[in-house]
């Protein structure tokens, strides 16, 4: 089995530790702690939106630095955030296929006594659950079929695109996260604009643009009667959780707001189906109340046989 260095990034550990907790909890529950290692030395991924726009070489160099940290330990990288995933995966793919770029980057890295040899693979936890853990193991641990709820999957731009580099799933019609959601017994519902952006990327420049995007997604999700959303990125999480509340306020005249669609990080959803006590996940940190969802689940959830 491939072993990974866990790349926490900045948003998850420094703002949303309860998401990190849910992942570790699941890992523990699956008895797979030995697949994922905490190592020191990682820096900023760096973020894939503004940073590469300022200077691509610096972006590549800082990302490659992180790759060398894992390379030293002969580990691949596992990310909790799709942003980290895109940055690191882009770097690993490009450095593998563009020797000139690698040479340039290594020249800079040599100033801190590092060299990247192009051996590190980068995975996002969605892929990790899909490939490494596998459905058999996931399903075996499901004790509480979430049959009663409809979940809207939000993949996130940086998990899917550019598909040529990230190669996670079909960018127009992805299915993997849906399959992962359905492993819990829940129904993953189709909705329009599944591939639409959460808007996090434009937030710093224009909050309105970002809010419009959130609303457009929520409108489609609400329409198909989803009970909650499932995301795999802390930025998407914030956008839909905190952002939902804020956008609902901002657009209170033009949409059927406020929406109340709880947002769950995938490992939280998984945890519920594993029968982990919801209290452990500290759902009160969520801006959109999760309680109604939990009640709905418990209303009919049947123990799996």
């Amino acid at each position, binding site marked *: 089995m491939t072993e990974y260095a866990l790349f926490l990034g900045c948003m998850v550990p420094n703002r949303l530790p309860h998401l990190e907790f849910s992942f570790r909890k699941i890992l523990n529950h699956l008895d797979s702690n030995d697949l994922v290692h905490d190592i020191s030395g990682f820096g900023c991924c760096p973020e894939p939106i503004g940073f590469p726009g300022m200077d691509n070489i610096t972006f590549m160099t800082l990302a490659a630095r992180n790759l060398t940290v894992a390379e030293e330990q002969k580990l691949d990288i596992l990310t909790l955030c799709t942003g980290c995933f895109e940055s690191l995966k882009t770097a690993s793919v490009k450095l593998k296929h563009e020797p000139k770029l690698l040479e340039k980057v290594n020249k800079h890295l040599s100033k801190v006594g590092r060299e990247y040899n192009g051996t590190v693979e980068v995975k996002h936890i969605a892929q990790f659950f899909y490939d490494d853990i596998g459905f058999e193991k996931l399903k075996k641990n499901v004790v509480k079929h979430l049959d009663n709820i409809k979940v809207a999957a939000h993949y996130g731009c940086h998990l899917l695109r550019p598909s040529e580099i990230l190669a996670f799933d079909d960018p*127009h019609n992805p299915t993997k996260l849906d399959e992962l959601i359905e492993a819990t017994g829940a129904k993953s519902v189709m909705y*329009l*604009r599944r591939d639409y952006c959460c808007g996090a990327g434009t937030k710093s420049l224009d909050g309105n643009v970002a809010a419009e995007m959130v609303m457009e997604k929520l409108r*489609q999700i609400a*329409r198909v009667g989803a009970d909650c959303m499932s995301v795999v990125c802390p930025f998407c999480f914030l956008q839909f959780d905190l952002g939902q509340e804020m956008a609902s306020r901002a657009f209170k005249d033009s949409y059927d707001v406020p929406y109340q669609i709880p947002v769950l990080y995938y490992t939280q959803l998984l945890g519920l189906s594993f029968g982990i006590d919801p209290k452990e996940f500290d759902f009160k940190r969520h801006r959109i109340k999760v309680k109604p969802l939990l009640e709905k689940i418990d209303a009919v959830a049947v123990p799996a046989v």
Partner: protein
Amino acid sequence: MTKIGLALCDCFGQFAEVIDLDSIEQSMRDSGKFSVILRKDDFCMTSGLESIKQMITENNLEKIVIAACSPKAYETVFRKVIEELGMNKYSSLVMVNLENHVVAVHKEMPKEATKKAKALILAAVAKIEKAESIEKIKIPIQPTTLIIGGGIAGETAAQELTDLGFDVTLVERRPSIGGRMLQLGTVYPTDDCSLCVRSSGYVGFDVGGPRRCFYRGGLGTLDKLEILTNTEVKDVKGQIGNFKVSLEKKPRYVNERCINCHKCAEVCPVEVENSFDFNLTKRKAIYRPFPQSIPPYYVIDPNICLFEKCAKCVEICPTNAINLNEKSEKMEKALGIVIMATGFEEYDASRLNYGYGMFPDVVTQLQLARMLDPTGPSYGEPYRPSNQDMPQKIVMIQCAGSRDETHMPYCSNVCCMIALKHSIMIKEKHPEIDITICYMDIRSVGKNYEEYYRKARELGVVFLRGKPSYVVDDQRTEKILVEVENTLTGEFNILETDLVALSMAMVPSKGSAELAKMLGIELDEYGFIQPLDPKIRPVETNVAGVFATGCTITPMDIPTTMAYSGTASIRAAKLMQSREMEKDKVTAWVNQDICSTCRICEQVCPFSAIEMGVKEDGKLGPAEVLDAKCYACGLCVSACPSAAISFKFYSEEQLKAEISSLLHNGGTDKKIIAFLCDECAYGTADEAGFMGLQYDPSVYIVRVPCISRVDPQLVLSTLQEGADGVLVIGCLKDRCHFLKGSEVGDLRVNLLRLLLNQMGINEERVKMYFVDCAEVNLFTRAVEEMTQTLETIGKLQMQ
């Protein structure tokens, strides 16, 4: 000893300006190879031809070398002359191209030129000495044609051929012929009913009139036309003149006693989407495909029929026309010619982001065509499938799936015109309906076509330049929303509409790939039939005797299809009219004792001309060349690992003798052999002569049919015999006259270069080039590059 004569031309004194013809004549006499030498300066004229005839008859010559101008210009003429004298035109004549290989291109080097001329003539002798006589073969051609596909393309070809007196079997897998055209309702450029077909026979007689309704056009009653509907082609074997075709006629369950009373459909309990209306409507399990169908009977859809569990229709049928136990019928037929006319279908619209399949009010242009058909489900009125209402606004999206690298990169040709036609039809009847066409470029090319574009604008159709990205719906208003940037204003638009019509890309119909495989015909990357030559031979395929017409080749409109079908019919008729095909046996042949049945030749032949034999015990037998299909390119000859395949013309011995003689007698300080394919490469060297370009006289040109005939072994032995460098020149890869020759040649030469490296021979000694006939200076450049290389690396010293 064979009696060989030499006809040495001076081209009205032109050759003597450069070469010393007396010295040449003397050397040839001294060589003792010729029984007679004739010097004149007008062999290409009547007087000259007469003198050749005289020389041959007077001296009882068996073979003749003519040293004059390019064989490309006069070989056919000379061949005809000697054939008249009873000589074999292939084995008894070799021409030496003094004009373009010597005189015109080495003007300043008379000494070298004279030496080269001598070497070329001697090589011609060496070649002619080894020439085997080539017999003629006759391939009987049955004057019958199988046409696959009963749409307008196939029907038209069937009419043409039956009019010309040939028997035709028209096979259609659907229960009626008629094809896509009948579903269109109204067609451009005439704006009339799509049921119109050309009538059979001669205008004014019998079924008369220039055009007729589909069901009145007499198609169903033509004596020479056998129509097999509900029938699939299961296998095709054999070659032109005698294709063995296996057919399977699926049961119709309703026979010709059917009087179309419709009682059966009334009682039939099962319903399904009606594919004739592109699923806009429903039909029963027992149904008539459409009111004018040919044959004019009902049919049962076996996929949904409940059969004996129900059998209600059997009970009610007043004429006892239904038999639920009908079985499918297998048929074997031998037919001379095959014409593929399998047509097109729309690209799967649900693969686009346009909400097709999600919103009922997003339809394709073909679905809209059904609505606009006066005999269609809504009697010619557009409607919203979701609620049957008349739409107030319609948006059409062009290039849906076409001109798109992620879907179909080509332009589907007819969609602009269809959208214009539909928008005009709607606007004329309902000016109050708003129509917006989202387009990138409107392609209404030619007379009477651009007029549609103008008319649509006149009628108030709005053209918005932009490719929509998304189609969604507004739940509250039940409108469809099309998101698009108007690229001419730079504004983001959300078009609110009631109906969206997608101008879908056209793709080859399902099943055409399997058919192509059976027939051995080449398809392009999108699954359309690859014509033998898209420019000159648009209806021929790589397999002799198999033709194609209509949208199975490329998206095309009806007038073009008519023209294609006419051409395909003429081509087919041309082959059938003489009832046999006469061919010189220059084709490849397999020495069956040596063949190891490796099947390599079968796979490499670009013309599907090789079939594996079957032994008595049913096991795989040695390969066999189907003469009628073979184009004599030589690809298989050089591909066969057991050297089991050979040519009588351009045989291995001939080529080796020619090369060895050249290297023995010719050359300056260096020797270069240039293998030129007989097509563009040889043409380029000729062209260099015509233009008077000068090049190094150490180059000797060896003609081969195609460079795929040049195998690494031949090049190696050429180097061993004393060549310092070898040029291999063929046609451009995508314009190879033998389709794959240049590509294969390239692979082989690259392999050879690797091998040379391993042997310690500089790989630069073998160079390969691809030319277009018009690229005159490529040949001289190739020679220059080779001589330069040889200057740096020196002569080849072989251990």
